């Protein structure tokens, strides 16, 4: 695989246009890559080849419906917590154990571990948070529900 000098995978202009297109929408058609190919002047096979390459590079990570969990009566929350430096690997294992934890970041802040949980209901969410708290010996944990979102959707120009 070609790599640019900075170590990033090399994408050409067309790859970037395709990425910008497919992260917004993939045609709902039995042959979506044929439809996309038409748009970009590629054959269906060429289009599949480009998307597959970006999949193999880890750039395209998933294809499918993107679900609005709010509409399914599920509970989601951002959690701020404090983890000791020597417990970070425990935290990594703890968040990996729970598919309901969708994102987890270490941050340079007094609250240094931030993660998101999506679960069937509030009680299930709390159970997961409790398990992670115990496993990684988190010293402080706060749920921070979203009160208002000022932005939805995708704005990444690649």
């Amino acid at each position, binding site marked *: 695989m070609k790599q640019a000098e900075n170590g*990033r995978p090399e*994408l050409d202009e067309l790859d970037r246009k395709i*990425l910008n297109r*497919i*992260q*917004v*929408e*993939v045609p*709902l058609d*039995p042959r*979506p890559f044929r439809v996309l190919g038409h748009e970009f002047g590629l054959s*269906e096979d060429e289009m*599949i080849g480009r*998307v597959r390459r970006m*999949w193999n*590079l*880890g*750039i*395209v*990570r*998933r*294809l*499918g*419906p*993107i*679900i*609005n*969990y709010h*509409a*399914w009566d599920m509970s989601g929350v*951002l959690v*701020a917590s404090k983890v000791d430096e020597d417990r970070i690997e425990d935290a*990594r294992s703890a*968040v*990996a154990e729970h*598919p309901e934890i*969708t*994102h*987890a*970041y*270490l*941050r*340079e*802040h007094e*609250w240094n*571990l*931030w*993660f*998101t949980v*999506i679960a069937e209901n509030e009680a299930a969410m709390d159970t997961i948070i409790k398990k992670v708290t115990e496993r990684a010996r988190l010293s402080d944990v706060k749920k*921070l529900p*979203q*009160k*208002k979102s*000022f*932005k939805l*959707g995708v*704005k*990444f120009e*690649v």
Partner: protein
Amino acid sequence: MVSDREFIDLAGKGLKIEAQPLRPLAEKLGLSQAEVIARIKRLIAEGKVRRFAASVRHQPIGFSVNAMVIAHTDEAHIDEVGNAGQRIEAVSHCYHRAHPNGDPWCVYIMVHGQGQEVVDDAVAQIRRIPGVREVEVCPSRGELKKTSLSGVSADPDLVGG
């Protein structure tokens, strides 16, 4: 008849990059591809599905710098700060949430940049928003996990970057 929930649990696992990506799903559900498409379209119309699309991981393509910025404001300015924050080019997500230390009037602004200067520039713009009295910049030290929940894929808007 497959319920919407069963449908989405299966469809949410993700499809393969192949000529007919919906075909294995349709076969598993005992539906035609046209029926699968119609179902997804209806769920989009009902707001239960945001869109049918690819999820893209930004980090390998250069969105290597990300920071969560917490802008402290007050009740009177919360919407103004949120709306100003979301208009900044490098900002992907913008939410009103409480601060873990207690301040209820905070806007969380997620900034992504192809380089530190893009992030620094966005932070400078955030500091200039009227009504912002204090700004905390919390750069990412690393991703412990970023995945989609099997069955129900989460849009990153829940957390932002």
